[in-house]
């Protein structure tokens, strides 16, 4: 059994502590807000100068002057603030954002991250990816464990151009939660019904299994959203 994309987002959401200031990248991370429990105050940052991002705007109620970093129309929570790009990136590059959850194409055993460019890709773009990867201490990756050809994305060494070296702390995927330590990858959790061997089979870099390695605590569904595939 594996997690859905929503399931991965759910699992990350459980780990974000109250009072955290979180930047969410494109891909699976954009699904996280749905799973943040209402009783935990967590502040979502958008690189275009917003702290306190709320749910998407209802159709017809969009405000033309209010989008997130992915250019989707959003709402703001009470206590939100808006500011210019310089202050927004002061938050990122100064390390004030406590957590960043981003997608990845490749992650290496030493924490190297590749998520901005496929070699040979026609037109490059980087956005705020490097600023986040260099600036945020708790940099978490949320992604599918393997690519769409079934090949591992967690490698001994990245093959794609790096976003930043040695920056990723944790990897949340559809089959595992892996921590990146100075001694390499540590398997902390596996999807219900799978075991460490199954995860290793889909991971190029060697995994050390944590003594307290356990099943990912993700229910089958959440308010009608399927979390397990």
């Amino acid at each position, binding site marked *: 059994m594996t997690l859905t994309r929503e399931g991965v987002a759910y699992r990350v959401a459980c780990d974000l502590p109250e009072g955290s200031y979180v930047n969410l990248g494109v891909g699976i991370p954009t699904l996280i807000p749905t799973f943040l429990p209402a009783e935990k105050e967590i502040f979502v940052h958008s690189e275009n*100068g917003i702290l306190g991002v709320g749910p998407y705007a209802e159709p*017809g109620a969009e405000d033309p*002057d209010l989008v997130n970093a992915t250019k989707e129309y959003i709402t703001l929570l009470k206590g939100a603030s808006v500011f210019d*790009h*310089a202050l927004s*990136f002061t938050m990122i590059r100064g390390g004030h954002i406590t957590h960043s959850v981003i997608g990845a194409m490749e992650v290496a055993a030493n924490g190297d991250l590749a998520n901005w460019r496929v070699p040979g890709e*026609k037109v*490059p773009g980087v956005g705020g990816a490097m600023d986040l990867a260099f600036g945020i201490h708790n940099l978490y990756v949320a992604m599918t464990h393997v690519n769409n050809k079934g090949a591992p994305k967690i490698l001994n060494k990245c093959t794609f151009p790096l976003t930043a070296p040695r920056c990723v702390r944790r990897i949340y995927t559809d089959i595992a939660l892996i921590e990146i330590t100075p001694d390499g990858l540590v398997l902390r959790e596996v999807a219900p019904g799978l075991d460490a061997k199954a995860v290793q089979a889909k991971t190029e870099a060697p995994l050390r299994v944590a003594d307290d390695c356990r099943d990912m605590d993700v229910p089958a569904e959440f308010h009608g959203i399927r979390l397990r595939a």
Partner: protein
Amino acid sequence: MIDKTVATCSEAVAKVFDGATIMVGGFGSPGIPSMLVEALRKQGAKNLVVISNNAGSDDWGLGGLIQDGRVRKLVASFPNSPGADAFKDLYMKGEIELELVPQGTLIERIRAGGAGIGGFYTPTGVGTELAAGKETRVINGREQVLESPLYADFTLIKAYRGDRLGNLTYRLAMRNFNPIMATAADVVIAEVDELVPVGTLGLEEIHTPGIFVDAVVKVERHPRLFEPQRARRAKK
């Protein structure tokens, strides 16, 4: 009496010259000076260097300017967003130059240009393609790359409200690059949704003091600026 208001966007951009460097504010649709960019398309200056986070959308605004072949070089962090087809086409044909800059480095370089800073060190990009060939040094145990300021001949920005002194405020996410770009050019031109009498804008709430602004034009918003349909698609 000082009066920085200008009647039309055409008048406001009349002095842009061939080869000029131009900053264009905005991120997504909020804060994009579309009417000024459209006026610049009509004005005709070519061989432009444009500094802007994105490469515009479709065939209007900055996308249109690029499609018209008027931009020699783009300095941007994310020129490959959906809709930036004009840029992508020209880039693939080798007909437009790109300086790709991490977004935080981009805004910091613009701020440095406006604040008289000759250069700065940042960790962002070290060990990646985007810092290749650049000077680095280790500061407090961390390798950092030396980045240079950006400064333009003209800056085009959009604000929500403005007065004849050039004081500006921005609504919600319109602010983004605009107040910083307003500090970093010889000539700063703002399009605004509303012109208000001096003293209307709260003195603690003015985001761009008039000292930075040379011209203010009241505009109707470009009809393409607000596209909730796309937003709805994005939510699916």
